[in-house]
C-alpha cells in the first residue's frame, strides 16, 4: 500500500478521501470553500447541479448507518449522479467471500466512486489501493481510524459559527476518544487549520495511549476541560463500553462527563455545542443542551450534504482532468 499519499494525485489534488492525516491546510480550505458554494444550492428550491451526471456512485456500507449513508446519498443525487446503496452487514456477508471479491464484483459494474464504511481500521486504504485507476474511494468511516467527511462538516460548521480564523479558538472534544474515528479526524483537521487549542476530555480508560502526540491537551475533568472553550464537540458513547470494564455505569459517566446547562456556564459565553449523532440523551448530554440555543447539531447534519458534495465533486474532478 502506498500510504496516505494514495489520496492525492500527481497535481496535489484529492483523488480519494481516506483520512485528514497527510493532507494540508490549503486542501482543507478548498473543501470548505467548495462546500460553501454548494451550501447555497441546497438552500435553493431547485437543489440539483449536473456536475456528476452519468456517474455511478456506490454506497458500500459494511456497518449500519442511517445518517451518514443518507446524507451521502442525497449529496450524490444533488450532483446528479446515479446512486446505488449496498449494505453488507456481517450476517449477510457470504461466508468465504473476501472484501476484495465483493469489491471486484461491484467494480465490474463500472462504478466511478465508492463511498465505504467498514468496521476495521484501514479498510478504506485497502480498498483505495485495490480499485481500478478510474475509481475514487471516499471513506465514510473505518474502524477507529478515520471519518474525514464528518470532521470536515464539523469544521464547516465551526467556520460558519466562528469565522475562518481557527487560531483564536479553543476546542474541547469530550468523550470516548479511544474508540472514536470521529475524534481522530476532528483532531487532525483542527490542528491542520491551526486551531489555538485542542483539548480532549475523558476518563483515563477512554483516552488513547500517548494522546498528546496527536496534538491535544488531555483533561480528565469536564469542568476544567471546557473552561473558556469556544467549541464543545461531544462524542457518542457506545453502550458496550460498560461491558469492557471501561466505565462503571452510564449514570456515573453522565454525572462526570455529561454536558448540562449548568456545566456549560464554564465555557465561553458564546460557545457552541456539537455532536456527530445519534445522541444518547441523558448520557453524553441532557436534552436541554441538545435542543438549546448553543446546539448546532442539526446544522451539522445539513452541512454534511454540502461538504460531501464538495468532496465527491473534487475527487471526481481530479481524475477527469487527470491522465485518463
Amino acid at each position: 500500500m502506498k500510504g496516505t499519499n494514495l489520496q492525492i494525485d500527481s497535481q496535489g489534488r484529492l483523488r480519494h478521501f481516506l483520512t485528514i492525516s497527510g493532507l494540508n491546510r490549503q486542501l482543507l480550505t478548498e473543501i470548505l470553500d467548495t462546500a460553501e458554494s454548494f451550501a447555497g444550492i441546497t438552500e435553493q428550491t431547485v437543489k440539483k447541479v449536473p456536475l456528476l451526471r452519468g456517474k455511478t456512485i456506490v454506497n458500500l456500507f459494511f456497518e449500519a448507518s442511517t445518517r451518514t449513508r443518507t446524507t451521502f446519498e442525497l449529496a450524490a443525487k444533488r450532483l446528479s449522479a446515479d446512486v446505488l446503496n449496498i449494505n453488507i452487514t456481517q450476517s449477510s456477508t457470504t461466508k468465504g467471500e473476501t472484501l476484495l471479491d465483493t469489491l471486484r464484483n461491484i467494480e465490474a459494474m463500472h462504478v466511478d466512486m465508492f463511498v465505504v464504511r467498514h468496521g476495521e481500521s484501514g479498510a478504506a486504504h485497502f480498498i483505495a489501493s485495490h480499485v481500478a485507476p478510474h475509481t475514487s474511494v471516499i471513506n465514510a468511516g473505518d474502524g477507529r481510524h478515520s471519518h474525514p467527511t464528518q470532521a470536515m462538516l464539523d469544521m464547516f460548521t465551526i467556520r460558519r459559527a466562528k469565522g475562518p480564523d481557527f487560531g483564536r479558538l479553543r476546542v474541547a472534544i469530550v468523550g470516548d476518544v479511544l474508540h472514536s474515528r470521529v475524534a481522530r479526524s476532528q483532531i487532525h483537521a483542527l490542528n491542520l487549520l491551526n486551531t489555538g487549542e485542542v483539548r480532549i476530555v475523558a476518563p483515563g480508560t477512554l483516552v488513547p495511549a500517548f494522546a498528546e502526540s496527536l496534538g491535544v491537551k488531555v483533561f480528565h475533568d469536564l469542568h476544567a476541560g471546557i473552561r473558556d472553550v469556544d467549541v464543545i464537540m461531544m462524542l457518542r458513547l457506545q453502550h458496550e463500553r460498560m461491558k469492557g470494564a471501561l466505565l462503571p455505569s452510564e449514570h456515573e459517566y453522565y454525572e462526570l462527563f455529561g454536558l448540562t446547562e449548568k456545566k456549560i456556564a464554564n465555557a465561553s459565553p458564546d460557545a457552541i455545542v456539537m455532536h456527530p449523532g445519534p445522541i444518547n440523551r441523558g448520557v453524553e448530554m441532557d436534552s436541554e443542551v441538545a435542543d438549546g440555543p448553543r446546539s448546532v447539531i442539526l446544522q451539522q447534519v445539513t452541512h454534511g450534504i454540502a461538504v460531501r458534495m464538495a468532496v465527491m465533486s473534487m475527487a471526481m474532478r481530479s481524475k477527469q482532468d487527470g491522465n485518463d
Partner: protein
Amino acid sequence: MTSMARGSRSRQQQIRIHGGHVIDPANGVDAVTDVYVARGRIAGLGAAPEGFTADVEIDAGGCVICPGLVDLAAALREPGQEHKATIASETRAAAGGGITTLCCAPDTTPVIDTPAVVELIRQRAAHTGKARVVTLGALTRNLDGEQLSEMAALRKAGCVGVSNATRPMLNSLVLRRALEYAATFDLTVFLHPIDHALANEGCAHEGRVSTRMGLPAIPEAAETAAVAHLLALIEQIGVRAHFCRLTTGRAARMIARARYDGVPVTADVAVPYLYLSENDISDFDSECHVLPPFRTVEDREQLRNAVRNGTIQVICSDHQPHEPDAKMGPFPSTRPGISGLDSLLPLSLRLVDDELLDLPELIRRLTVAPAQILGLPGGTLSTGASADICIFDPAQTWLLDHASLRSQGHNTPFIGWEMKGRVVHTLLEGRLVHSLRP
C-alpha cells in the same frame, strides 16, 4: 533424525571443502582451512584424515564455512495448512538459506500432542530430506491450556521440548502444574510471554502509531506482565525455560536481571524485530502485521543491545509463511506473521556490519546456541558431528524479491531490500541439499 536420507548414495561420498574461511564458534575455529566430510560426518579440519580421498571437491574460495543454521522457530504449516506451505517446500527454502535444522512449534493442525503427529512430521521431513525438522510437543492437550499433555510420551517420540505456542493457559495453577510436570521429565519449556487478557486481540503496539491509526493495540505490559508471572513460577519450580520472541526492551531487562540473579533462563528474538518498528505499519502495511507487534524504535534498539550483551542468546526467523490472500484485507483482519527462512542469514549478517556482533559470535547465535537450547548435539564442526554445513559468500549482494524467494510464503516486508551474504552450498548429513554452483 538420523534415519533421514538413509541409503542415499551421496551419503557415502567423501567431500573436501577447501579454500574457505571456517568459523566454528563451539571450537573457537576462525581460520582459512579445509573441511573433510566422510560418512555424513565431519571427518576433520585442516590436514586430511589418514586415508581420506575426496570424491567431491567443493571450492569455497571467498566463502565462509560454518555449521548449518539452527532455526528455533519455523512454522512449516504441515500438517493442517498445506495451502500456506509444506514440509517439502519449507525445508527446501531452509536449505537455500543455509538452515539445516528447523524447530517447529506444536500449533499445527492437529496439534503436536500425540506421538503420532510427531512421527508424521518426522516421516514427511525424512521423505523430503532437505532439512532436519525437530518438534516441540504441546504443553497442554490440544493447546487448550487446561489439561496436561502426555509429555513423557512426547519426549519419547522425539520432541525436544514442550510449549503452549502462543495459546493462553487457563490459569496460573495449570501453568504451574504443567511446568512442574515438564521438569519431571527434564523437558525444556518454550514460553511465549503474552498476557492474552491485556493483549485483548490487538494487532499493533499500543503507542503513538496505533493511536493515530486507530488500531486495536497491545500494551508493552502484555509482555512484561507475562515475563514477571512466568519468572516467578520458573524460579520456584526450577524448570529449564526458554523465552520465545521477546519484543520489548523492558522484558529483555527483566530477563537480564533474572539471569543475574541466577535463574538459568534463555531467550530469543526474531530477526525482523531488530530492523522494524511500529513505524513500519503506518501505511497499514499488512506485511508488517506480526504478533506480538513491532514495538517502538527504542525497543528495537534495546533488543539489539540485549542481543549484543548476551541477554538474548539466539536469533531466529519466526518463519510464518502465508498464502497471498492471508495478507489481503484491512490490516486488523489480515493474518500476522512473516515468511523468514530466506532472509534469516542475510538479515542477521547486517548485525556484523552494524558492529553489534563479530562474525563468529553472530554465527554462534545462529548455530550452536540454539542447538544447545534444543538439547541437540549439532551446530558445530567438531570431528564426528553430523556434517551439517552452510557455505556462504559474505560479500555477495542480492535483491530479495518474489523471484528469489524460495519459501512458498511470499509474505515479507523485506521485499525490495538488498541482502548481503548469499548461501552458496548447504550440506545436511554430508549431502549437498542446496548448491548455487554446479
